[in-house]
C-alpha cells in the first residue's frame, strides 16, 4: 500500500481480469495478506498472535452459531439445553467444549498480543489508531465473554451476572435505574438471559467489523517490528506471502495442538465446578469468581476497602476497574518516548517486566477469596498498576536515555547474526535503494 516497492497484483487469466475490473476482491486479499504486503523481515514469534487472535475469533463465531442452533435462551430451559448439547446433539460435546475453551484461548492469545504491543511500543505514532481499535476489540471481547458465560445459567453464571450488573448501581443518582434497566428486572432473570443471548450473538460480528478496521489501520503504516525502527527500504521487508503465511501456518499448528489437548483432555480445567449446578437465585456459592481473564480487574475492583475523599469504597472500586481498562486508551499519549522498542529502553524494559509480574499477582488475587493476605497484596499490586501507567511511564519517557538504535531493520538483523555494526552498515549500503 504505502510501500512503493510492494508487488502489484496482476491477474493473468481472463476470469481474473474480468473480476478485477468489477470487484477487485482478489486484489484486496493480495494486497492485505498476500504477496503485495511488505512486512519487516525480523518479526519474531510474538508477532504470530495477531493472526491467531483472528483465527480464534472465527472459531468462536462458527462454534457459537452452531451452539445457538441447539441452545434455548430461557431460564427454564437454558441449563438443560446445554446438557442436551453435551449428551444428545451429534458431536455437541466437542462443539461446546471448543466454544468454552476457545474463549479462554482467545483471551490468552489477545493478552500476549497486547503485551507484545506494549513491549515493542506498537501503540506509538503512527499506530495510535491501530492501538485504539485494538482496545475497542478488547472491551467488546470482555462484554461478549461475560454475557456468554451467563448463558449457561449455572450458579456462577447467575451470580456473576448479579455481581457484575450490580457494579452499575454504584454510580451516584442514576445507578439503580441503570442496574434495573440492564437486567430488565430487579435480579437476573428471563429478560436478562434473553437480552444477553441476543447481544452475545451480535457482538462477535461487531468485533469482526472492528477487526477489519484494525487490519486496515495496520496496513497504512505497516507492521511494527522488534527493533521499533521504521522500514527504510525493500531490503528491510519480505512479502507477507509466502514468508509470513508459512510462519503463521506453523504457529496455527502449534496453537491448534495445544487447543486440542485442552478441549479433549482438560475441557473443564479453565471453568468452575459451581457452573455445573443449575442457577439458584436463593443461594450464593461460597466463593464467587469470574472467568480467569477478568481476575486482574476483579482484584482491582475489590481492592478499594475504605471511603476516601467523600467517595464510597464501592464507587472507587467500580471507577478503578473501568479506569484500569480505559487508561490503556491513553497509552500513546502517556508514553511519549520517541523510541518504540523496549529492547533499547533499559528503564522502561525493567518496569515492563514489573508490570507483567504485577498483572499476574493481580490475577492471582482476583482468583482468591477477598481475605488476608490476598486483599492487602491486591491493594499494593493495584496501586502499582495505576502508578505504572499514570506516573512511572510519563516520567521515564522523559528522563530515560535509550541505547543506540540500529540504523535500519537489516542492520539489526545482521548484527544479531554476529556481524559487526560496520560490516552490517556496509552491506545495507551496498543494496541499491528504490527510485522513489
Amino acid at each position: 500500500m504505502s510501500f512503493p516497492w510492494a508487488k502489484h497484483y496482476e491477474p493473468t487469466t481472463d476470469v481474473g481480469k474480468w473480476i478485477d475490473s468489477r470487484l477487485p476482491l482478489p486484489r484486496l486479499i493480495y494486497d492485505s495478506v498476500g504477496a503485495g504486503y511488505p512486512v519487516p523481515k525480523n518479526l519474531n514469534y510474538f508477532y504470530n498472535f495477531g493472526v491467531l487472535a483472528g483465527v480464534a475469533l472465527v472459531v468462536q463465531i462458527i462454534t457459537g452459531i452452531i451452539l445457538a442452533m441447539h441452545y434455548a435462551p430461557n431460564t427454564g430451559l437454558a441449563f438443560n439445553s446445554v446438557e442436551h448439547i453435551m449428551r444428545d446433539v451429534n458431536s455437541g460435546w466437542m462443539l461446546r467444549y471448543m466454544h468454552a475453551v476457545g474463549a479462554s484461548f482467545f483471551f490468552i492469545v489477545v493478552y500476549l498480543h497486547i503485551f507484545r504491543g506494549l513491549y515493542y511500543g506498537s501503540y506509538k505514532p503512527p499506530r495510535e489508531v491501530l492501538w485504539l481499535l485494538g482496545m475497542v476489540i478488547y472491551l467488546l471481547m470482555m462484554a461478549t465473554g461475560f454475557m456468554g458465560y451467563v448463558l449457561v445459567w449455572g450458579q456462577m453464571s447467575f451470580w456473576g451476572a448479579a455481581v457484575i450488573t450490580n457494579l452499575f448501581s454504584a454510580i451516584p443518582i442514576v445507578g439503580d435505574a441503570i442496574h434495573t434497566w440492564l437486567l430488565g428486572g430487579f435480579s437476573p432473570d428471563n429478560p436478562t438471559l434473553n437480552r444477553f443471548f441476543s447481544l452475545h450473538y451480535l457482538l462477535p460480528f461487531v468485533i469482526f467489523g472492528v477487526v477489519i478496521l484494525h487490519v486496515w489501520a495496520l496496513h497504512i503504516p505497516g507492521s511494527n517490528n522488534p527493533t521499533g525502527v521504521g522500514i527504510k527500504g525493500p531490503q528491510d521487508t519480505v512479502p507477507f506471502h509466502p514468508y509470513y503465511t508459512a510462519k503463521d501456518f506453523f504457529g496455527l499448528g502449534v496453537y491448534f495442538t495445544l487447543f486440542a489437548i485442552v478441549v479433549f483432555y482438560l475441557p473443564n480445567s479453565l471453568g468452575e465446578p459451581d457452573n455445573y449446578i443449575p442457577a439458584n437465585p436463593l443461594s450464593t456459592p461460597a466463593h464467587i469468581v469470574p472467568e480467569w481473564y477478568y481476575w486482574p480487574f476483579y482484584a482491582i475492583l475489590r481492592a478499594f476497602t475504605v471511603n476516601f475523599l467523600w467517595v464510597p469504597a464501592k464507587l472507587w472500586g467500580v471507577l478503578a476497574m473501568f479506569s484500569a481498562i480505559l487508561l490503556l486508551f491513553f497509552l500513546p499519549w502517556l508514553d511519549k518516548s520517541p523510541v518504540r522498542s523496549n529492547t533499547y529502553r533499559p528503564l522502561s524494559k525493567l518496569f515492563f517486566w514489573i508490570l507483567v509480574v504485577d498483572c499476574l499477582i493481580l490475577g492471582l488475587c482476583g482468583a482468591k477469596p477477598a481475605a488476608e493476605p490476598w486483599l492487602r497484596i491486591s491493594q499494593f499490586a493495584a496501586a502499582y498498576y495505576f502508578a505504572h501507567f499514570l506516573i512511572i511511564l510519563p516520567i521515564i519517557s522523559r528522563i530515560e536515555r535509550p541505547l543506540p538504535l540500529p540504523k535500519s531493520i537489516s542492520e539489526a538483523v545482521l548484527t544479531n547474526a554476529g556481524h559487526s555494526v560496520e560490516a552490517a552498515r556496509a552491506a545495507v549500503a551496498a543494496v541499491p535503494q528504490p527510485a522513489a
Partner: protein
Amino acid sequence: MGRLIAFLAPFAIGGVFVLALLVGAFMPRDAVTPDPTIALHKEAKEVSFKSDGVFGTFDKAQLQRGFKVYQEVCAACHSLHQVAFRDLAALGFTPAEIKAIAKKNDQPTIDEKTGDAATRPGLPSDKFYGPYANEVAARAANNNALPPDLSLMTKAREHGNRYVYSLLTGYANAPAGWAVPQGLHYNPYFKSINIAMPAPLTSEGQVEYTDGTKPTVDQMAKDVSAFLIWTAEPKLVERHRTGFGAVIFLLIMTGLGYLSYRRVWAEIKYKTKKGEVASA
C-alpha cells in the same frame, strides 16, 4: 495552560487512585474469627478410576454395578434429571432390559379422558426424574434438606470423582468439642462438615452384586462414583479417542508446517546466519 493540565492530569488521577489504595492497605484489619469448618475439612481421598487419564475408558461391568447401587440406594432420594433410560445402552443393557427398567419408573401424565393428573409406565425416552414431584415435596420428605440431582455431581464439585467416593466413605464420629446438630451427620469431606444425608452405604452386601465382585462399602462407593462419572460425562471415551487422533494429526501437520516454514525462509534467514552478508 491546557498543555499544563494535560501534563499534570495523569499524575493527579494516578496519585488519587494510588492514595485511595494505600490508605486501604495500611488501614488496620479487624481480627477475624477463623471459620472452624476450614480446619476440619479434608481434601478428597486419592482414588483412581479406569476413566482417568488420556486413555481412560469406562469399565462397563463397574458401571452396571454402580447403576445397581444407585437404583437400590441413591434413587430413594436422588434424581438423575439429565439421564434418560435409553442412555443405559452405553452400559451394555439391551433394549429389552432398558424397556423393563423404564417401565418400573412411573412418569406423570394426564388421563386422556378426564385430563386429570395420572401416571403411566416409563418409556426409554423418559429420564430418571427421581421420587419427588418437585422441590417442596423433596424438602418436606427430608427434614427440609434438598437431595441434589446427581447427574452432574462429579463435575459440580472440586475433584468431583474423588469427592463422591470420599463423601460416601467419609462418615465418622465428630471430634470432641464439635457439636453436630440434631438430624445432621459428621462428614469432613463435606464442605460445611455437617451433612443432612445419613451415611447411605453402611454394611457389606447392602447391594447384591451378580458378577461375583465382593460388595464391600468401599467397592460400592467406588462403583457408584464410576457410575456418576459416566452420568456427568457420557461422551468421555469418545472424547479421549477423538482427542488422540486429533492431537497426533495436528502434531504431524505442525511438523510439516515447520519444515515448510524453514524452506520458505531458507534463503533469507538461515543463510544470513551462516554469514552470507551480501544477500541481506
